[in-house]
Structure formats: C-alpha cells, structure tokens
C-alpha cells in the first residue's frame, strides 16, 4: 500500500510535482503514465526517501520510508537501471545488496535465474550490459529481499517485446499473490499491457486516474472510408458531429450502428467501423505529450 497525499516538490519556482495524491492498492499493478519530465521519477524518489518533499506526504504501508527497518526486505525499489557502478559484475551488485539486507548468497542465484541472466552474463561487468540486461538486473535487485511492495521507474525501457511480455506475467503473478506494484512509463502501450490501474501525470499534476477499464472505456466510434470527405459530409448531414482522428479516419460520439446506417444511407463505402477503444486516453496522452515536447508546437 502506497499513499501519496498532496505531494509537492518545487525547484526554485518550478513545480516538478504539484499537489499529487494517489493510492496504490495491494493486488494491483498501478501504472504511472506521463511524458518525460512529467514528475514521475521525482514522485518515486520522494516515496523512496531520496528526495525531500516540499510539502505533502508519501507513506508506504502507513509509515515514512525512513522509518522502515531494513527496507530492502519490505519494499523493492528500482529507480534507474543505469545507475550502477560500471566496473562491478551483475552478480556482485546483487551480492552487495544481499549483504546489506543480511540475505544468503543463494538468494542471488535464485534472482539471477528468475530474471533469466545466465551465470556467464552475471559474471560480466555491467558496462558490457545492454539496457535490457540492466533492467533485468535492476528488477532482480528490487525483488532480492522478497518485498511485498515494488516501485519500478521505467522498468520496461530497453526491454524487447518478449521482455515486456515476461515482465507483465512476472508483475501479474506478483500482484495476484497480494503484492503492491507502482511502475512508471512514458509509453501508453507499456502501461496498457502491464497495469490494472492507471495514473496519468503531466507537468507535475495528475490529469486522470482510474482502472484501466474506466480509462480505456469505449468513447464513441472510429470510422474510416475510402473517400474521407464524402464520409464527413454524410455524417454531418445525418447530424453527427465528427472529429478527425489520425489515419484519415473520423471519430464521433455516436454508436457504431448509427454511424453505419448514416454511411449506408449516403452510399459511402466504409473501410473501418469500430468502437473507438481507448481513444479518449490516447488523445489525452498525446495532448499532454505534445504540450511538453518540442514537436508539439503544431497542436
């Protein structure tokens, strides 16, 4: 259980985290979604006691992170898979954490096996690791102390599709056994694949939160025709408001049956007609991303 309440962190006049409140419940994977620089990492560092909050609180299981004895055995944290001494071997990094937590070295081998790092790979120095391997090592490090709570910052970054699938089943299992997971990503797709509950953050503020079903709920219809302008005219004539929605398609609030009838009445041949699944979240996310990225000047 992670409880963040009215958390704010400012740097000079800049509000990196602005009045953020959310809860991560046991048994669910909570996805923390936002563009780069939205305040995800800062929030996570505050939860892990590395960054002091300007105001507000972040509690883990009802206590401050600093008051958790031997925290590695109660909460697993991966904040940056690249923040490793490049000259240490992967195995040595886990061994150091195991010593800190007072765990037997056999636990290190178990974890290496769990994240599919071979004995040969584990003896290589981390500077020779790919980002994907570093992520696996970082996840092994977070799971080492068998914690009931996990905080992972961009853990899927650098993983290949098979790796992302692997992580989904790993975290799914973990949550099903009653674990609490907070993981962040700047990619909607990753969060959609892995998370049960989603918190969307942009420019330090939470802009949406809820279960994946709620946020990805059908919001109207996506329709596409060979002749886009004929379709637009047909729908307008039928009194349906439309908005362009990528790929030359249109989005409307009406349900697919109504849209199909309108198109048929006007004799427009459709290429695609389906519920506009997740379009609401996707567009909100694009809007967020565009306002913080340089490419977004056009929108």
């Amino acid at each position, binding site marked *: 259980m992670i409880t963040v309440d009215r958390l704010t962190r400012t740097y000079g006049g800049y509000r990196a985290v602005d009045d953020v409140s959310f809860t991560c419940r046991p048994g669910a994977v909570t996805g923390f979604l936002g563009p780069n620089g939205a305040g995800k990492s800062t929030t996570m560092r505050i939860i892990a006691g590395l960054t002091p909050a300007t105001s507000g609180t972040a509690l883990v299981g009802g206590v401050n*992170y600093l008051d958790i*004895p031997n*925290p590695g055995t*109660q909460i697993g*944290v991966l*904040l940056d898979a690249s923040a490793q001494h490049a*000259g240490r071997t992967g195995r040595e990094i886990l061994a150091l954490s195991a010593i*800190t937590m007072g765990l037997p070295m056999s636990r290190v081998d178990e974890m290496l096996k769990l994240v599919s790092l071979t004995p040969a790979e584990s003896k290589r120095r981390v500077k020779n690791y790919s980002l994907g391997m570093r992520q696996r090592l970082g996840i092994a490090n977070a799971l080492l102390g068998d914690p009931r709570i996990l905080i992972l910052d961009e853990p899927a970054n650098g993983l290949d599709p098979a790796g992302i699938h692997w992580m989904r089943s790993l975290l799914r299992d973990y949550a099903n056994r009653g674990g609490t997971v907070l993981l962040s990503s700047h990619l909607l797709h990753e969060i959609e694949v892995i998370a049960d509950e989603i918190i969307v953050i942009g420019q330090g503020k939470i802009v949406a939160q809820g279960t994946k079903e709620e946020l990805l709920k059908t919001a109207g219809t996506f329709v596409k025709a060979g002749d886009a302008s004929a379709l637009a005219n047909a729908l307008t004539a039928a009194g349906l408001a439309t908005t362009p929605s990528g790929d030359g398609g249109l989005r409307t609030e009406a349900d697919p049956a109504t849209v199909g009838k309108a198109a048929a009445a006007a004799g427009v041949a459709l290429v695609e007609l389906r519920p506009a699944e997740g379009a609401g979240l996707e567009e909100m996310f694009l809007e967020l991303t565009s306002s913080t990225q340089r490419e977004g000047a056009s929108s």
Partner: protein
Amino acid sequence: MSTTAAPVTIDTARPGVPLGRLVKLELRKMFDTRSGFWLMMSIAIVALIATVSVILVQAFADDPNVSYETFGGAVGFPMAVILPVIAILSVTSEWSQRTGLITFTLTPHRGSVILSKAIAAIIVGVVSMIVAMAIGAIGNLIGSGATGEPLVWDIGVDDFLLILFGNVLGLLIGFMLGVLVRNSAAAIVAYFVYSFVLPTIFEVLSQLMDWFSDLRPWIDFNFAQGQLFDAPVSGEEWAQIGTSGIIWFVIPLLIGVRAVLRSEVK
C-alpha cells in the same frame, strides 16, 4: 518468492541493518571493481618499489647510512597520497557512479552509510600502513644483510603510532573532502590544493607578516600535522593540531555531512 498470503504492511519491529554489516559492505565495495582492486594493490606495490629503491641506493652508495627510518620514510610518503584518494573514492563513487540510488534506498539513514565508510577507510588505512611498514622492515633486513652495514631499528612503537595517526588523519581529510564535494575528480583536485597550495599560501603569508608566523601553527592544519612526523609532540603542538583541525577538518566535515543528509540523491 516463498511467502504467499502475507498482508502488505510494513513491519517496523524488524531489526534494522547493523553497522558491522555496513562496514563489511563498504570494505567489499573498495575491492570489487578492477580499478578499486588495483588501487588497493598499489599500496603494496608502491611500498615494494620504494623498498627496493632504498636497497639499491644502499648497495651502490659510498656512505649508505641507511636505517629503518629511511625505509619508513620512502614507504610512507606514497601512502600519504594513495590513502586519501582511496577515502575520497569510497565516498564520491556513490554520486559519480550513481550507486547511491541503491545504497541510500537500502540504508535510508545516510549518517550510518557515511559512518560505515569512515570506519572502513580507517581500517584500510591502518592495515595498509602496517603492511607498508612490514615491507620496509623486510627491506631493512635484506639491505643490511646484503651490504654488511649495521642493522638499525630507529622507529619505535611511539614513532610508528604517530606516523600511523598522521596518515589516518590524511586519509580522513580525503574522506572529509569527498563528503564535502561529492565528485571524484573535484575532490581529488581539492585534496591537492588543500595539501600543497594552501600550505604554500600560509608559508608566504608568514614570511611577509611576523604576527602571522606566530599564529600560523594554530590555524595551519598542514603545518600542525607536520609536527606529528617529528616526535616527540609537545602539549602545545597537540593543541595546535586541535585548533587548526577544527577549522580545516571538523567544520567542513560537519557542513559536508549536513549536506549529505539533506541533499537529493539522483
């Protein structure tokens, strides 16, 4: 992944991480990279090179007049450079290599981490000095055996303890600069400024102003420390080490520790 239905609460009664374990951890971190390992090895290697050089001088000089003190001096000087660097890197690598992200999440009480690093650095310093002086002693035996010169042991236990104290103090200065600066390159540069540039400035000032040359032993830490290597050390000299040490060691260390405790780890 053995536990199954444990409730997700935090156990605040669980034992914390004991200091002894942290010291063991910090010692291991000093040896477990190639650069760290060879930095440690360099202590023995440099001591060996210094000893062999003295033996060679002894063998070829007309009037060698070599005693254990000669070996001690030759072996001890490089220690004064290597030990502070070891102490600096043990602190700064947490920031320069960003390993602090894991270290300080596993041990959120940063004071304990800093304390365990200081203890580990002192252990390394003491053991290194004993190894180095032992290598020097073997050199002294070999040297006098080979040249037929009389064997002279002119470093007593008291002298050795003072030399040891002096070198550990040097190491702690490196440690303090590491804590204060938290950047490997900058801290090493700061150490050389601290031990070579500052004394020169004090020297020039005391030459220019009479009143300053009287004041100097009380505020020039480097000058005061030098007295340790020139036994016996008088009560006044100890007091001078104390006052200058407060200015140049204790106060900056407190500022550094305070910053470490409050700063953001990224």
